[in-house]
Structure formats: C-alpha cells, structure tokens
C-alpha cells in the first residue's frame, strides 16, 4: 500500500498521473464504456412498470383497458409484437407503427376521441405522456426477439419505398436530408457518433435500442419523437404525429434493421 501521507492538494497531484490524457482512439473506447455502464444502471424499467399499469387501466367513455389491443399478432398479444412493427392492418387498411396503433386502440377500445388521445404525445421529465409509458412497456416485451418487419403486403412495400425516398430527400434552408448526417460511415457530430441508417450495419443496433430513456433529460423518448426532433434539427416543418410519412420512414429503418435482436427500451446519453 502506498504509504504516502500527503495533504489533499498533493494527493491530487500525485494521483493525477493515474488519469492519463485520452487520445482519439481511446475516446471512442471510453464513450462506448460510458454507454455500456449507462445501460447497465438504467431506471428505464420504472417506465415499463408504469406502462404496464396504464396498459391495464380502464379508461375513456367505454371504461376499457388496452389489454385487448391487437398490435398485429392477435388481441392483447405483446410478446414480440414490436419486433414486427410497422405492419399493414386490415381493419384500418393502413400500415401503422406502434404509436399510431396504440392511439387506434384508445379510440376503438376505450372510445376516446382521437384529438384528446393525441393532445399530448410528447411529455417531459416531470410528467411523461401516456404513450411514453405505454411504449416503454410494449417494446420491452420484444426484448431479445429478432426484428422481422415484412414488406410482403403491397402497402408495406410502398411504405418502405416511400421511406427510402424520404431518407434521401434534401430540402429546407440547410439542404439537409437524413443522409446528410446518417449517410456516411465513421462520421460524428461533435462527440456524437453517427450510425449509417440506410445500411444494416448502422441501422441494426440503433433501431434495436430505440425508443429509449434519455439520461440527459431523464425522459422516455418514443420513435415518433425521434423523427420529430430530427426533422426539427434538419430545419424542416413539423411531421404530423403518426402520419404515413413518419410510418414510411420508420418502416424503411426497421426493414434495414431486420435480423437484429431487439434490445429496447434503450438508455442513451
């Protein structure tokens, strides 16, 4: 044991050697270590628990819970449901993502008005939105299941194609598309590494760890929010919640991530 009696300041100097400066390659390794330790010690499960309560809580004029909501694998089936979304639903004749499907169940099963159910789709740390809790619970039920999003149905195929076009569509005052940041391998914005999302190598891990709990603001963030905030930073007008365009872009990213074991809800910076 280093028997060195030093005052606090000297101790700091003596120990400073231990904290060697970090070089570029170490930087990437240290940030990955930060991300790993973050995910290991995450409070995201608290959102899953509260999401389960909401899933089972009778609400709306019909005083019904969401336990019979069909997410594509049969009424109330949760295990692996998210790993197969977005998908075509015959009852609505539309390709739907998880969030638009949950709202559909609020309207049909609970008898709630669409406007009321979507009044506050994005919450905050003090008061998360209903969808943020529900999404945390539902996606958690697909953890470990391989992402398998189909494009067999013509509308699913069309959504995928539209999504790919949207991904590369450059517009707005800054001429950006999704590809501007997520199109070239090995790039980063500030310290933020940027996965290439139109190729499986980049899309798989990223898509498999969204939706996610954001430690920087202690908020559970949904995929609709993720697209919404990206378009804001691309200086575009706002995408309408649950619209075909957002579902198409989600479809493109999900299909690109097919085969990856879903690992959400994730925990991110």
């Amino acid at each position, binding site marked *: 044991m280093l028997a060195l009696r030093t005052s606090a300041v000297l101790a700091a100097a003596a120990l400073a050697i231990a*904290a060697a400066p*970090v070089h570029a390659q170490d930087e990437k390794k*240290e940030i990955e270590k930060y*991300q790993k330790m973050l995910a290991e010690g995450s409070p995201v499960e608290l959102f899953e628990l509260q999401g389960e309560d909401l899933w089972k809580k009778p609400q709306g004029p019909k005083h019904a819970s969401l336990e019979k909501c069909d997410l594509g694998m049969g009424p109330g089936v949760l295990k692996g449901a998210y790993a197969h979304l977005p998908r075509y639903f015959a009852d609505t004749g539309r390709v739907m993502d998880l969030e638009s499907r949950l709202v559909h169940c609020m309207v049909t099963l609970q008898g709630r008005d669409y406007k009321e159910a979507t009044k506050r789709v994005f919450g905050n740390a003090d008061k998360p939105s209903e969808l943020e809790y529900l999404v945390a619970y539902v996606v958690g039920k697909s953890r470990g299941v391989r992402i398998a999003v189909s494009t067999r149905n013509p509308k699913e195929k069309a959504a995928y194609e539209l999504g790919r076009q949207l991904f590369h569509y450059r517009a707005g005052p800054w001429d950006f598309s999704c590809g501007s940041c997520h199109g070239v391998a090995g790039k980063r914005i500030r*310290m*933020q590494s940027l996965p290439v999302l139109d190729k499986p190598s980049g899309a798989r891990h990223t898509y498999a760890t969204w939706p996610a709990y954001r430690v*920087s603001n202690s908020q559970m963030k949904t995929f609709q929010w993720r697209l919404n905030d990206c378009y804001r930073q691309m200086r575009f007008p706002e995408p309408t919640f649950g619209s075909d365009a957002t579902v198409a872009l989600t479809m493109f990213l999900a299909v690109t991530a097919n085969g990856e074991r879903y690992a959400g809800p994730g925990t991110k910076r």
Partner: protein
Amino acid sequence: MDEGRRVILRSAGATGALAVALAAGLLKPERVLAAAWDESAFRQKDVADALKSIGADNAVASKEVVLDVPEIAENGAVVPVEITSHVPGTTSIAVVIDKNPFPLSSKFSFTEGALPYVKLNVKMGQSSNIRVIAEAGGKHYVAMREVKVTIGGCGG
C-alpha cells in the same frame, strides 16, 4: 462516523428531515437508528473542507480502492461510477466530486455482511476529478480518476 457506530439522534432543535419525519410519526422507531443526514459535510463548498469534514483530509492513495468510471461522459447528468474496496475491514465508502458546487456526493456504510461495493449514477457540473475514499480501522484510503464531461448531441 464515530467508532462505536453509536447513533446520535439529532438534537431536538435540528431541522433535519429525519427529525421532522419522526415528529410527524411518519417513521417507525427503528428508522431512527439510521444516521441522520450529515448536513455540515454535505454543505462544504471546498473539496479540502469536504474531505476534512469526513475525516479524510490525509487519506492515503491506495490501489486497493478500485474506482471504475468512464474517462469521458457524453452528459454530466448521469455519470456511472462503480467502486470496490479491497482494503480489509472497510466500513464505509464516500464519493467526492472535486468541482461540483458541493463536492461531497454520498457516503455508504456497510455492516452485517455487506461487501464494500457500490455502483451509482452521479451528476457532474463539469469535467472534474472524482475521488472515492474507503474507511477501514479509522484510516482513509483514496482512489481518484478524472472524468471529462462533453456536450453530446448536435447542440441544436
């Protein structure tokens, strides 16, 4: 932390939450055994004073206190810290973050078979040294690492 682990119930005048909670009958008596909140130590603004307030001003640098923390944190709101003390007879571990407004972050005391180990998430206002101090047999042993806090994301 005095030797005999005798618990001093804060004097009636103290405004500590524990006293208030007790008075309000919120807490069952055995909760009283928990050491009250060491307000004077937690309110020190200077790192040397914070160390002195927990008796760790002349702590000895020791490799037997293992502090695992990433050297870079993408955000200061959550910095994961994992601490293990291999110093025999460790009874408590304290966490000090030099450049935080109040450097003393937390103190953990271990009894009845608990291992001197803790993993927690701390907030850091800026890049800073983190020190963890293990106490064993009335002596203090310290390990320190520097954590660089960056602003993640696109700053937009």
